């Protein structure tokens, strides 16, 4: 046991973002370190592995400019922690928690380990209050519930970021409570960064943002979501706020995980992603939730891009197994000019059952959602059939369903930048059902 910082100049190897140090006395797993490069630049790092001869350190930041002779490594005798305070609201940070909005760093009230601690399953409150995103296809058919983790599966080139920005600025709590957004951007291009910057500027002090741009260190991509979630947990369970955490884009996170895993010479799993990716993703996603007898909640809305539009790719696949449903965007809807281009059929919100209906949204919410879904599913199936046999080969009632599916996409799913509250959404759904004479029960 040591109670002081130790400094070493015994770096023996540097491999990408990984640094090996020899002859270290009593290093700890997860211990936070500072590396001082010969040019005076300081970098943060974390101990990943210790054996008798050497210690393996993962560096948060660019390892350019480090050398074996002059680089010094200081071990801090504590794990990586995040500075927490209410004053983080309205601020923008980089992936290492340094402010990038020009204002000075605040004085932290507390420090908390970033790796997080699992919530005891018996201490969890079952989520059952809706968050109104203002998007009909989500609120009406796949409602987002406080404490839920609901990812958005996008494809390259689809306006996922616009959808996120719209949710950022339009989301409201159905009940009362203080509502804030923690926004974590991973591997974003400058263009996207600028776009989000503008969105955030319009919502003063209701957000905390962490930006890791495409040109910034890969390891920070692994750190930034943990910083964001640690802040979110503090705001939720210490300051009793309802926090919505948006992480975009998780595909960049997973690719960073793969990159680091490969440089550690670990055995690759499916498509080169490490075998522990499920557990690693779970350690992020599972931090969403609510606690019994305590106000505050952490809700997660991660965004990911499905490589090759493939929903069976390891990233969306493992995500789908952990999260409570998914919102899927489709290229076909985008081509039809529908915004948001949500393909309702593969979408799902597992927690919706208990968060809607009488006393929460409206008594007929569930029936409207079920009927719309069934009619649309039927219409979509008929569309395939009509492509082969032509509309004339269909029964008259089937032709009606076909028309309804088109109308549903044009009027219900498509809404542009307009915000619809849940009652407007339900009325619109009811109107469609009545128009096509679909009975509610």
């Amino acid at each position: 046991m040591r109670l002081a910082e130790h400094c070493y100049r015994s770096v023996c190897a540097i491999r990408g973002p990984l640094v090996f140090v020899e002859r270290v006395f009593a290093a700890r797993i997860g211990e936070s370190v500072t590396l001082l490069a010969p040019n005076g630049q300081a970098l943060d790092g974390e101990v990943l592995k210790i054996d008798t001869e050497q210690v393996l350190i993962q560096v948060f930041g660019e390892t350019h400019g480090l050398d074996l002779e002059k680089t010094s490594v200081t071990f801090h005798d504590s794990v990586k922690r995040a500075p927490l305070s209410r004053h983080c609201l309205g601020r923008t940070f980089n992936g290492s928690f340094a402010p990038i909005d020009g204002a000075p760093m605040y004085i932290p009230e507390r420090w908390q380990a970033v790796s997080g601690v699992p919530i005891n399953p018996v201490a969890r409150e079952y989520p059952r209050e809706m968050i109104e995103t203002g998007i009909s296809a989500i609120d009406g058919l796949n409602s987002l519930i406080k404490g839920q983790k609901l990812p958005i599966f996008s494809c390259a080139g689809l306006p996922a970021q616009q959808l996120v920005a719209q949710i950022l600025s339009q989301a409201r709590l159905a009940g009362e409570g203080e509502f804030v957004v923690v926004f974590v951007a991973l591997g974003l291009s400058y263009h996207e960064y600028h776009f989000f910057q503008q969105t955030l500027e319009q919502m003063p002090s209701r957000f905390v943002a962490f930006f890791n741009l495409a040109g910034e260190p890969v390891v920070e991509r692994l750190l930034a979501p943990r910083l964001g979630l640690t802040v979110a947990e503090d705001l939720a369970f210490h300051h009793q706020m309802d926090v919505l955490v948006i992480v975009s884009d998780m595909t960049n996170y997973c690719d960073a995980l793969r990159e680091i895993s490969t440089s550690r010479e670990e055995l690759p799993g499916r498509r080169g992603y490490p075998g522990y990716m499920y557990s690693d993703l779970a350690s992020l996603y599972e931090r969403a939730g609510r606690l019994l007898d305590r106000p505050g909640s952490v809700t997660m809305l991660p965004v990911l891009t499905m490589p090759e539009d493939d929903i069976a790719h390891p990233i969306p696949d493992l995500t789908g197994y952990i999260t409570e449903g998914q919102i899927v965007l489709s290229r076909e809807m985008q081509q039809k000019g529908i915004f948001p281009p949500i393909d309702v059929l593969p979408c799902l919100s597992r927690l919706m059952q208990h968060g809607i209906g009488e006393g929460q949204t409206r008594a007929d919410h569930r029936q409207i959602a079920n009927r719309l879904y069934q009619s649309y599913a039927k219409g979509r199936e008929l569309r395939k059939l009509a492509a082969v046999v032509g509309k004339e080969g269909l029964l008259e009632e089937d032709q009606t369903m076909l028309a309804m599916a088109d109308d549903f996409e044009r009027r219900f799913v498509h809404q542009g930048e307009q915000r619809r509250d849940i009652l407007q959404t339900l009325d619109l759904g009811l109107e469609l059902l009545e128009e096509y004479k679909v009975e509610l029960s």
Partner: protein
Amino acid sequence: MKGVVTSISGATVSVDIRGLQLYDRVYIGHARLSGEVVHLEKTSTTVQVFEDTHGLSIGEPAEGTRAPLTVSLGPGLLGGIFDGLQRPLPALQQATGAFLQTTREILPIDLQRQWDFTPSKQPGETVAAGEVFGSVAEGHLQHPLFASHAGELETITPGTFSLHEPLAVLKGGQKLFGWQSWPVRRPRVSGGKRPAETPLITGQRCIDFLFPMLKGGVAIIPGGFGTGKTVLEQSIAKFADTDVVVYVGCGERGNEMAGLLREFGELLDSAGRPLLERTIVVANTSNMPVAARESSIFTAVTMAEYYRDMGYDVLFLADSLSRWAEALREISASLEEIPGEEGYPTYLSSRLAAFIERAGVVETALGKPGSLSMILAVSPPGADFSEPVTQACLRAAGAFYLLDTALAHSRHFPAIHWTQSYSLFAAQGSTYFCREVDERWPELQRRCRDILQQEDALREVVEVVGMEGLQDQDRLLMSAAERVRRDFLCQNSFTEDAFSAPAQTAQRISEIIENYAQALKRLQQGELLADILKGGDDASG
């Protein structure tokens, strides 16, 4: 046996203790994190730690126990909620708050709780090891207590005892307690296996009618995400006609577990008792440590075997076995073993088969058989059923309920695919239901399958020529098949319909089939199809 930590990589830790055995329990570091020996070499011992190793340093002390990971078995397990190492989660919450912290050990059973003990032996009688020497009432169940040692009883008295007191003393001073420990990785011995014969009534029409499950059998439920594995498992856990349910949430969602605990606490079984009273829950969510996830199914199955040995019907449900296999893979990779298919260790299928063999009907010390049935959810990556875990399960399981993504997308729940699923227990099921419920059972089953198969063939035709191109007779069949699917196979787990007794099941399918037969007759007599279909709709409301 003491030593120090020599290297650390994540949850894999090497220590310099000699003389340990494989799977011995080891306590690591000042925080006394618990782990088990997974590799032995002359110079070092590798330990897989069940907890988060953050902050651990080399040179910290390590202590070997010369005993494997065990579970405590005794009255008071029912209604309990444990983690993968059998630590009681409610007590842990009281000790450390809402977030799980590594802490001193808390015993899984409450030794202070008082029980009314009724001896079944007199002083002076002899007991054999494993023989019953008395019982307590645990809720509505009679909980027999097994002797840990053989000998002649010196004292044994009825009365109220807590579990830390001995309930009987043998000649020579050996004490008999009401609870015992058992190593989780060793199957509990029993009086020999018997073939399974009686159906396990799940209340799911599709399962009971088309693909019956037996008490003592093993079924697997593979399905991609969103196909309703968890809802189906929980629905079976609620309604199955069994005495005890052991439910393992292995590497799954925390909110789901919270929902299950809340719902099971509120719902009543057919006798009006809270469901949780017959249930043991083991919850190791996906963000809890991986090694404990691996051990969780063994912890749970050992408790299940304990109640089976009392002559009860026990149902073991795991959600999901794939997470267990992945934990095995993670541990194997961190030990740098040579990977097999998809990175899983090559011993995956033998481990899995050995685990599944712990199910079955056995003779017990009480003279009546006890059964342990398993229903295991599998989560194949990308809903691709050719992956190693599904395939390994298939070879060992007797019933296979394939959950289909397309069915789930069309909100057909349970999304059990009726042509690709199967049950090797179909013959025993039919015999039983034919005898006990309805003699038409096998005939109804045959006609139901027939309708579904014909529909399958007709669908291909429809895809080419459209509905309008079909003959009237075929259109009638299509509409009957739709009724079978919509009104019979579909079952909403969130309504009254969640449980369907076998008699109701038979009633419902016979109505549909009879309606179809009558409609067919009317069509042959020259009535118009449109009139018949219209009339049929009216009749069905």
